[in-house]
C-alpha cells in the first residue's frame, strides 16, 4: 500500500472539456450512459461549464470527512493514503452522509430496491496498487494530475507564483480541513459553483465532536442531580410520614 498521502491536482485553466475523465471513470466503475451534467448514481464525476470554464465535479476526499463522521456504522472511511472509501457491506441506507456532506457529493441509487450510496472513490483499488486514478490517466492535457499531496501542493504553489492570472488560492489546501482533491483556477471559485467556506473555519466533524463530547458530562452531572432530587423527594416523604405519625400519637394521647 502506498505510504504517502495521494491527491489530485485539477488545473481549471488547462481543462478543455473533452469529458475523457468522465468516460474513463464510467469504464473503471462499470457505469452506463453518456456524460452527465450533474453528479448522479451513474456519474461519479462530471465536467460542468461555469463562466466559460470547464469545472470538474467529484468527491473532494476531505482529510476530515463529514460523511465518515456522520455514518453510524462506519461504512465511509478516510484511508491513510488519501481516498475516502465506502464499504457497501456495512451501509444500512440511512442517507445521513448525503445530508452531512458540505458539497452534497454522495448520491443514492433511487432506482433500485436495494440501493447503495455512490460516490467517487478516487480509484482506491488502483491507488492502493500504486497506479494513478482512471481520470488522471485519461486526461489529455494534464488538467487532472495525480501525485503525492505535498508534492502537488508545491506544484500548485509554483504555478500560482509563476502566473499572476491565477486566483491566489489553492482550493482544498485548507477547505474542510484540507482535501485530497486540489483545484487552482483563474476565475474566483465562488463563481464556479464551489462551496466557499472561510479557510480558518474548523472542519465540520469537530462541531459534532464537541457536541458529542458533552455526553459524559450530561450523564454524570445529570445522573447525580436526578439521584439527588430523588433522595430529597424520598426524605421529604419520610419526614412527612413521621410527622403525621407523631401527630397522630400525640392526638391519641391527648384524648386519653
Amino acid at each position, binding site marked *: 500500500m502506498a505510504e504517502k498521502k495521494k491527491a489530485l491536482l485539477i488545473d481549471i485553466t488547462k481543462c478543455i472539456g473533452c469529458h475523457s475523465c468522465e468516460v474513463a471513470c464510467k469504464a473503471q466503475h462499470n457505469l452506463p450512459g453518456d456524460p452527465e451534467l450533474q453528479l448522479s448514481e451513474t456519474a461519479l464525476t462530471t465536467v460542468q461549464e461555469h463562466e466559460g470554464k470547464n469545472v470538474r465535479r467529484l468527491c473532494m476526499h476531505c482529510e476530515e470527512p463529514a460523511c465518515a463522521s456522520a455514518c453510524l456504522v462506519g461504512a465511509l472511511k478516510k484511508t491513510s493514503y488519501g481516498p475516502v472509501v465506502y464499504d457497501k457491506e456495512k451501509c444500512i*441506507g*440511512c442517507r445521513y452522509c448525503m445530508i*452531512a456532506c458540505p458539497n452534497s457529493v454522495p448520491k*443514492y441509487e433511487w*432506482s433500485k430496491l436495494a*440501493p447503495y450510496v455512490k460516490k467517487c472513490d478516487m480509484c482506491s483499488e488502483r491507488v492502493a496498487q500504486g497506479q494513478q486514478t482512471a481520470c488522471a490517466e485519461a486526461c489529455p492535457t494534464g488538467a487532472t494530475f495525480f501525485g503525492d499531496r505535498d508534492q502537488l501542493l508545491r506544484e500548485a504553489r509554483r504555478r500560482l507564483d509563476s502566473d499572476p492570472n491565477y486566483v491566489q488560492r489553492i482550493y482544498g489546501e485548507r477547505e474542510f480541513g484540507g482535501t485530497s482533491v486540489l483545484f487552482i483556477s483563474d476565475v474566483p471559485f465562488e463563481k464556479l459553483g464551489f462551496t466557499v467556506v472561510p479557510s480558518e473555519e474548523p472542519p465540520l466533524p469537530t462541531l459534532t465532536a464537541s457536541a458529542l463530547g458533552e455526553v459524559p458530562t*450530561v450523564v454524570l452531572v445529570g445522573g447525580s442531580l436526578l439521584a439527588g432530587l430523588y433522595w430529597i423527594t424520598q426524605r421529604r416523604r419520610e419526614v412527612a410520614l413521621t410527622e403525621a405519625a407523631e401527630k397522630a400519637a400525640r392526638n391519641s394521647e391527648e384524648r386519653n
Partner: protein
Amino acid sequence: MPEEKKSFVTMWRIILALIFAAGIYATYLRFAVGWHAATNMSDAQPWGIWVGVATLCGVGLSAGGFATAAAVYLLGMERYRLICRTAIMIALLGYGSVCVGYAYELGLPWRFWHPLVYWNRHSVLFEVCWCIIMYTTVLMIEFSPAVVEKLPWKRLRETYLGWHHRIVIAFVLAGVLLSSLHQSFLGGLFIITKGKEYPLWYSTHLTTLFYMSAIPAGIAMIVMALYLSIRSLNVRIDPEILRDLSSVLTPLLMMFAIFRGVDMAREGGLPYLFRWRAETGYFWLEMLLFVFLPVVLLNLNYVRNRPVALYWTNAIVVMGFITNRINVSITGLERATHAGYSPKWPELAVTLMLTTCAVLAFRYAVLYLDILPRTALTKQPKWLANAGVAANA
C-alpha cells in the same frame, strides 16, 4: 354509550379502512415497486417526511413520557401519578411507530441490526440510534406492569410487580438521561449541516433547542390524549388536570422562545428575519403556532376553563412543533441543495397509517388495560374479570 349500538359500518370505520388501504398500497409501492413510485426523495433531498415527521416528531412528541416519569418518581409531584401510565404509553407507542417507520425509511432495512455490531462513536446518528433502542427497552419495562397485572397467574403477577416496584426508579432515572441525550441529539444531527442549513434554523445549539421544544410538545400531546380519552373512552378523571398540564407550557415555551432569540442573535440569523423569502414565511408560521398563539391563548380564562379550547390550543402547539421539525429537516436545507421537495402521497399514507396504528393501540389499551380510571364501557373478557382490581383502587 350510544356508540355501541350503532351499525357496524360507521363513518370512522370507513375512514380507518381507507387509511389502511392507502397505507398498505403505499407499503407495496415502497417495497415492491421502488423509491420513485413511493417517494419524492432525491439526491437533493435525501430525507423527506419519513425523517422529518415520522422520526423527528414521533420521538419529539413522546417526550412527555420521560418528563412525567421524572415529575412523579424523581420530583414527587404525586398529582401527576394518575397520568403517568398514559404518558409512558404515548411514549412507547411513539417510539414503536418510529421503529416501524424506519423499515420504510432505511434503504436496506433488513440491516437494521448493523449499528449494534458496527460502531462509529463519532456519529451523532449512532448515539441517537443506541439511545432510542435503549430507551424503547426502558419504556417497555416501565409500562410492563399494565400488561403483567392482567395476567391470570397470581404468583407470577405478584412476584413481577413486587420486583418491578423495587427497581423501577433506576429505569426512570436511566430513561430521563437517555431521553435527554437523544432528544437533544436529534437536533445535533443537523449541526454538521453548517453552510447548508438556512441561518434561521442553523445553530450549534440545535441540541438544546430540540430538547427545550420537545418537552412542551410532549406535554401538549398528553393533554390531547387525555382530553380525547375523557370525551370518547369514558375516562373519569378531573378535567382540571388538563389545565394544570397546560399551565406548564407557557413558561416552557417562553423559555424556548427566549433561548431561540438569543441563540439566533449569536449565530447571526437576525438579518434573515424579515427577508422576502419562502423561508421567512415558514419561520414565522412556526413561531406563530409554537410560541405566540399558545402563549396568548393559554393565558385567556376562556381557554383555561374549557377542555375543548385547551385541546385545540395544545393541538396548535403540536402543529407548531411539527412545523419546526419539518423546517429544520426539509425547508432549511432546500435552498442550499436546490431541492423542491414536497411529499408524494405514499409518504403521507404511510405516516398516516403508522399514526393511526398508534392511536388505535392507545384506544384499545385504555379500553382493556388499567391506564386511566374509567367506567366500564364493554364487557370484560372472563379472564380479566378479577385481575387489576388493585390498580383500579
